[in-house]
């Protein structure tokens, strides 16, 4: 992702296989240092019982993070009275996003000869 733009993350989450309580909440954690949970953004659910597409927006990271790798993972919680939770951390590898500089344009000086 570029340092000046947010990154949209979508997750298709459902609780359909056990209990069927639906997804009550989902949170995306991200950071640059393990355990990569220094920051978090709440997910926007699909409505209904929460089964479906959840959307997250990792904000623009700024130039200070250019060249660094952002790691994130997502935790979800179902709607049971005793909520069950799950995380998706890409089998322990976390999701990794390289922060790159925005596209830049180079303007050559225009020299006028008299």
């Amino acid at each position, binding site marked *: *992702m570029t340092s000046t733009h947010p*990154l*949209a*993350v*979508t*997750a*298709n*989450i*459902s*609780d*359909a*296989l*056990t*209990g069927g309580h639906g*997804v*009550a*909440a989902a*949170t995306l*954690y991200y950071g640059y240092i*393990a*355990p*990569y*949970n220094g920051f*978090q953004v709440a997910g926007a659910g699909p409505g209904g019982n929460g*089964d479906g597409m959840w959307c997250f927006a990792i904000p623009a990271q700024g130039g200070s993070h250019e060249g660094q790798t952002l790691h*994130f*993972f*997502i*935790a*979800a*919680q*179902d709607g049971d009275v*005793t*909520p*069950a*939770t*799950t*995380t*998706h*951390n*890409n*089998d*322990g590898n976390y*999701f990794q*996003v390289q922060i790159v500089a925005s596209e830049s344009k180079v303007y050559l000086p225009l020299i006028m000869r008299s």
Partner: protein
Amino acid sequence: MHERFQPRAWDVGILFLIEQTAAVRNLDSVASGVGFAGTTLNLNLGDSLGPITERGLKLQWFNTASRESLGAGAIAGVINRYSGEWITDEDRQAQANLKLVLAGWAHGQNIVVQIGATKIDNPGVLAPGEVPDYLELAGTGWEILSTLAENWERDPQTGRLQNKGTMAFTISLTILFYLRTVDNAGNRSVPMRYGPFRLDSEEPPSTPVLDGYLDEASNEWLEGERMGHDTRPDSGPQSFYMTRDEYNFYFAWDGVGWNTDGDAFIYFNVDPGPESQGITTTWDYSDTHTLPLYNIERMPNYAFTADYVFYVEGADTWGLMRWMSTTTSWEPITASVTTTLLYGGDQVEISLLKADVGVDTGCAGTETSVLAFAQEEMTGTLISAFPTTNDIFVGLTDYYNWGNLCPSGPPAENQPQAASMVLDGTARPSGAVRRGDAVTYTFTYQNAGLLPIEGLAHVWLTLPSDLDADCDDISGDYNTGLGIQTQGNTCIVPVVQDSPMYVYELPARYTGMLTLTGQVSTTASTGWLTVTGVISHDITSELDWRDNTATPAVEVDATPPQAAFSTEAMEGLFTVQAGGGAIYGGPKMQGPRTLQAAADTVYVGPNMQVLGNASDNRSGVVRIEVDLGDGQGWRDASGTTLWSHAGATAPADGTSLTLRVRATDGVGNRSDEVTLNVVMDSVAPQSAILYPADGSPVPLGQTVPITGTSADARSGVERGGHRDLHPHGPAPPTRWGIRRHQERRWWCRSTKRRTPSALASARPPSRAA
């Protein structure tokens, strides 16, 4: 505590101030210079002002009409500088260029203030700097500064001058005022009450056309003549109209058929009347009702003692009755021939000679009260009542009243007259509190009605048992001479009475404030901690005003939150796609399923995730702290109701780790610590295929039963790796098998192409892996 006068939303005042004058000659003569003639206020300043100092003469009046009544209407006045006094040129110089400050305060709709050529529509709030300090209008008001009109006329014989300048002004308002003047030494004249007046340009009450129909399309009856609209009758809403002219009362009833639906009664209490002692029991007509024994809205202990009743049973059955105190009975009387009742089905119009009910012709002299109701014909049960403030299920309490019946303004204006103490309450803090926290309850009372209260009024504050406070913790505006009485957990607080005069610098419609401070009991339960306040007129009879109850409350959160580790997995679909790129995950993603090893102990794998949930039933979870058993103590986790901490260091295989978590809610309540022991199992189970034997042929096109074994040394085999494989419990060794699989092609190919060792390594996958 006397507050500075603070205009209310329904107040209006006007203040005349003549600057640059020297002395006040006669204060009372000023009052005599103010009066109303018809709908015009003639204010002759020239006759009484004389030389006045710069802080000069203050005339002001205050509207105490009902708060919504500032509708159309106007004061039309003339400021007349003609004094009839011839003065010298020298004196003229002293009176030249006098400034008139016309200032006041008004809130409402369609207010117009105009003096001379200067006009303000809907005068608003003046900036503080624009309000002269002598006004002290609390930042609200309007002001017009004008030079008093001058039209000097010289007497050709004496050479002296007199000023015949006049200035007209209008103020669109409805007012009731007390007039008082103040001189430079602070002396005040005796307040004089004027009004209430509806000073407007509207026509006096009209004389309706009596034909049995209200003719609403032609506005035969004015809106201001509709005394009430009662939606309670089962047969539909009813409206009661009333107006009058010099000789007659006119009534109309809309919405009921008297021939079939019920009977109507209009009771009159006139004072002075031909029978000074009326009766509070209605005429026995199927049943009797008790007329208002008091009218707390108007005046306590002022009973409606009926002198006359006009009844309507049907189009041809109606009449007039009179209470005879000499015989203590209701007796029919013959109404004048001008009395008319015209019946239009569900509408009726009535004309009744004033003199027939003991009311003087014209508008002066007779105080008149009216109460009307309808009742079921057979049972006498009340159907409707006017004023509609009467509770038809409880009893009659309210009636209309006019001090006189001067034909100005719709009769519904300002009815019923009222002194109505209103109690409001607030509690702080506004958010939840916990045991031991300080709380404050504030009650304000004010007379929102028309008349001053008479006698005593009390605020009854009932304290809940979970509040550590008593009557000594009440402060504010109360009658300290009478003191606060304690009855159990109730504090009876005598309020400061209304000022009987609405005059400048005295509290008009006094507003008082009471404050109760206390602490939430250390044994308080979770819930609302409510102090119930009721303002009542009399300490013994508890005659209540409307809007007389306030129940401010604070929310007590005495229940700590609950926190837990998540050891149950949410199982389902969980795929992730970042920025439109690759999709991670599959259709069978699941969370960190953990296996119970012992009480409070679970097995975990190398990719241990520490996460959980928390809840709070009141103020909400605001903080989660975890101890990861690494000697670093408590640290904050991410999230609240769904929380996690990824900083845990997995222990070596076979060793254990103790995790702790605790939660804090919005008011600082902390949950009990929850402990979870985890035992690391980082070794995958061992599996083997028993059948078919490695390399053995399998029949094409048939279901192939596959059996095998799986063993795990620590946490046990949780399940097989395919959705058709059925787990057989954790105890090793475990036999597992593929039952009747229907995907023939896949299995045939697989069983033929894969070696048993490959199969064994392919499934079942280790839970830990």
